[in-house]
Structure formats: C-alpha cells, structure tokens
C-alpha cells in the first residue's frame, strides 16, 4: 500500500508491481443542478478527478445510485446515468457495473479505478520551499450553486457553472505529467484554503496566497455579497482558522470564496517556481483557460498567509 486511509489524500494507492499501482476512489452526492443529465456528468467528472489529482489515468468505474423510485420517474435515472457514461467515455474509462438502492433522497456517484506508475504518484503532501502553486479552475462554485438552488441565478450563469463542473481535469493532468510536480490535489469540499491546509499542515513550509491572482467565477462575489454562501464555507474557515493568517480588514467576500466548497473543482499543483510560468502557458494552450499562479511556498511553520 502506498497511500491509505490514514492520509488525507484524494484516493488510495496500492502497488501491484514495480511499474504499476492501482488508484481507487469513490465519490457520490445529491444533485447540485436540476438537469439530470448534467448532474450525471458533474458527478462523473467529480469522481474521476481524484484519479487525475494523483497523477493517474482512470480505467474502470462502477455506478453508485440511491434513487427515490416511488416519487421520481425512471427517466430521470436514465438521464443521470447517460450523463455519467458520456463523461466516462470522454475520459476513456469503462463502466463495469454498479449498485443501486431505493432511498428517499436521490444520490449518484461513482467508484473509479485508475493506473499510475508507483514512482509517479502525486500525493497532496510534498510541497517544497521555492515552489509555486497553480490552480486550474475558478473558485466560487459552491456559492453559485447556492444561488442556483435559491432560484437566483440566471440561465447563462447556470450553463457556465455546469460546464465548469462537468469539465474533466484530464487535460490539466496530461499537461501536468510533463512537469516535475512536487504535490497535487483537487480542490473540492474544503475549498482552496482547506485543501491547501491539508497539503502543509505540520510541515516546515509556509504558503503565501496572492488572493488577487486567484481565478474566481465572476458572479460569485455578487452572490456572496447577498449572503448566498454555503454553510460549508463557514465550517471550512472555522476548522482551519488557526492555520490561516489574514489581515483584519481582508475582504470578507473574497475570504469566503477562498473557503468556498467546490464541486468538481480544479487541480492545485505545486512545482518549482522556474517551471510554473511554463506550466501555466501549456495549460492555457490545452484549453485550461483559468489556470493561474496563485501562491508561493517558502520555508516556515505550516501557516497559510493570504494577501
């Protein structure tokens, strides 16, 4: 076993031979959008993301379904699964089967298995002083989804955030494979600062985040300003309060965005400062348009400094 349940990593990794290790991960959740097909795509992209974040290639997947069969038309389930399959196809991953149960609340997700070379596993620990941090998708998904849930988002906004959530981290991971990456994770439920905290907690490194450089969905700020911040963002902040240094007059809206829980968020990649601009340029070429350098790693005390 290379990475197991004792780590806060994205997936488990088990070495099979000198040159092959298995990555296994599982993720499922209730709907984040109204459209069943889109929900299927988002759930699949989200489940696959952990494999990409470990530096691996997804190979097989199994569906996990909880469905309120009494109250919901079976077409809904069919559309969800169709969305999932389309994303799996895009990821060149084979669906082997799955399991469904009847439940009051709809939930869908997948268990995904991928391959990685044992020497090429990208854990979330391993950032080094002198590294830069690159983020590949804009933040604010949780806030925008809260507005969507409240019926306060425009159609265009829903389309944009749906497209972002259903976008695989595959292209970003392929580009990343050409670089000497010291650590990587995908930004999901704990938000940018929460996942970053996992990367450096208890280490001799300190991270400086340049908040102004962090890509953010354009609507997130306005929604945050009228109180559409998911409870998770506050919990994330509370949980990591002691690890995050922020000026007293730091913009509270931006602060919430930095802690905002993401669904199918981007990769957070650490690599040597000299290499970072080249990685960002290659990501942009590959269509990962939002990719940006968002911070630096220095020697220090396991603290995140946000400026």
């Amino acid at each position, binding site marked *: 076993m290379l990475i197991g349940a004792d780590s806060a990593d994205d997936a488990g990794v088990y070495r099979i031979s000198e040159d092959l290790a298995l990555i296994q991960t599982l993720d499922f959740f209730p709907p984040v959008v109204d459209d069943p097909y889109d929900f299927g795509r988002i759930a699949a992209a989200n489940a696959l993301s952990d494999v990409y974040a470990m530096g691996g290639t997804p190979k097989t997947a199994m569906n996990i379904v909880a469905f309120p069969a009494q109250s919901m038309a079976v077409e809904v389930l069919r559309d969800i699964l169709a969305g999932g399959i389309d994303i799996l196809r895009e990821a060149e991953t084979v669906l082997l089967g799955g399991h469904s149960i009847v439940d009051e609340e709809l939930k869908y997700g997948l268990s995904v298995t991928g391959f990685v070379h044992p020497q090429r596993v990208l854990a979330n620990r391993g950032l080094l002083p002198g590294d830069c941090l690159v983020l590949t998708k804009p933040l604010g998904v949780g806030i925008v989804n809260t507005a969507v849930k409240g019926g306060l988002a425009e159609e265009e906004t829903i389309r944009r955030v749906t497209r972002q959530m259903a976008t695989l981290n595959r292209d970003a991971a392929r580009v990343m494979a050409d670089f000497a990456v010291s650590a990587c994770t995908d930004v999901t439920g704990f938000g940018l600062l929460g996942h970053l905290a996992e990367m450096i907690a208890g280490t001799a490194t300190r991270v400086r985040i340049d908040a102004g450089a962090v890509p953010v969905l354009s609507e997130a700020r306005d929604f945050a300003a009228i*109180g559409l911040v998911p*409870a998770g963002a*506050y919990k994330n902040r509370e949980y990591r309060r002691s690890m995050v240094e922020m000026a007293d007059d730091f913009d509270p809206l931006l602060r919430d965005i930095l802690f905002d829980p993401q669904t199918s968020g981007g990769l957070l990649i650490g690599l040597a400062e000299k290499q970072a601009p080249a990685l960002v340029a290659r990501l942009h070429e590959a269509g990962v348009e939002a990719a940006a350098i968002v911070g630096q790693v220095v020697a220090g005390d396991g603290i995140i400094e946000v400026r």
Partner: protein
Amino acid sequence: MKTLDARGLACPGPVLLAKKTLDDQRPERLAMLVDNDAARENVGRFLASRGFAVSVERQGDDYLLSGLLQGGGGGDVAAAPTATATATAVQAQPAAAPTRVVVLIGSDQLGRGDEQLGGKLMVSYLKTLKEMGPELWQLIFVNGGVRLTLDDSPVLAELQEYERDGVIVLACGTCLAHFAVSERQRVGQSTNMLDIVTATQLADKVIALS
C-alpha cells in the same frame, strides 16, 4: 414587528425567507431567528446589501437578527426629521414598477415634546421629502395635518410644487370642516375616508406620521 423563524432551514433557506419577506412586504424593520453561524452571517449580509442596519443578539443556542432600513439607501442613520416620527410600513403589493409611496400626515407637528420644534421639524420633513423622488405618489393630510394645506401654511409653496410635479395631495374633508377652515384650503383636493383607505391599500408603502 413579527419575528421570522428560520431555525432548522438549510442554506440558503434563511436568506430566501428574508428575501421573500422584503420583496413581498417591503418592511422597514425585520427580525429573524436563526440557529447557526452560517445563517447568521448570510442573513446579516443579505440585509446589509438591502440597506438595513443589522444587530445580532444571542438567544441561547440561537441568534436574533434585527434589521432597520436606513434612509437614503444605506450608510447613515435616518435623517433627523424622521427620527422622531412614527414611521410605519404597512401594505405590500407585489413589486409593480414604479414603487408608490403614500405619506399620511396626521398633525402639523412632527413628534411630541415641544410644539414649536415639532412644527419646524414637520416643515423640514415636507421640504426634504422631495428627495424621495418619483416614488412619492400621494400626500394625505388628516386631523391637525390639514392645517398645512391652508392659506397660512409654512409649506404652502412646497406642497403646491409637489402637486404641479404630479404628486396627489389630499386633505381630509371631515377634518377641514371640523376646524371650520374649508374655505382657507389652498392646496390639494378635499377627500373622504374611502379615498384614504383605497390609497393606502394600493400603495407599495405607507409612511404614517403622527
């Protein structure tokens, strides 16, 4: 003021409840009980974004948020003249543009304490009222308020100007008769209680000064 109970509502439920209440009823005060930090911050932020000054009070495991609508679209505290008035938001029509505000004036003085001061404050209020802009729909004078529509009114010119600008100015006919001053009315139309009831019913907001 009714207290809205948003305890037990999952995010973004408390904000949506506050939003619905503001949109439907346009209250100037709003109180809401919430049971978690996220809702406290979110509802507080929402009310602030709508121009309310918000205070939070801990009540056991819950929080009571109290919002008071600030004058002039946020920022400073309500201007002095209204501070002593009994300003009450009644009526709630769904948001039909433009907003129609009725100001119901029951006295020629604003507030109680000193008659001379009250008279000055009312003059100041009526002069400043034009800052409300086109939302001002009707000015209705009842009881002692009808004196402000007479030939010796200190705001006669101002009220006539409101009328020229399209504001409906009404004076209670019964009240004019009671004070035996019907002949001295120089601005507005004399009206009856049915008109007043109808006006306050159709308004988006009624500001009652007594």
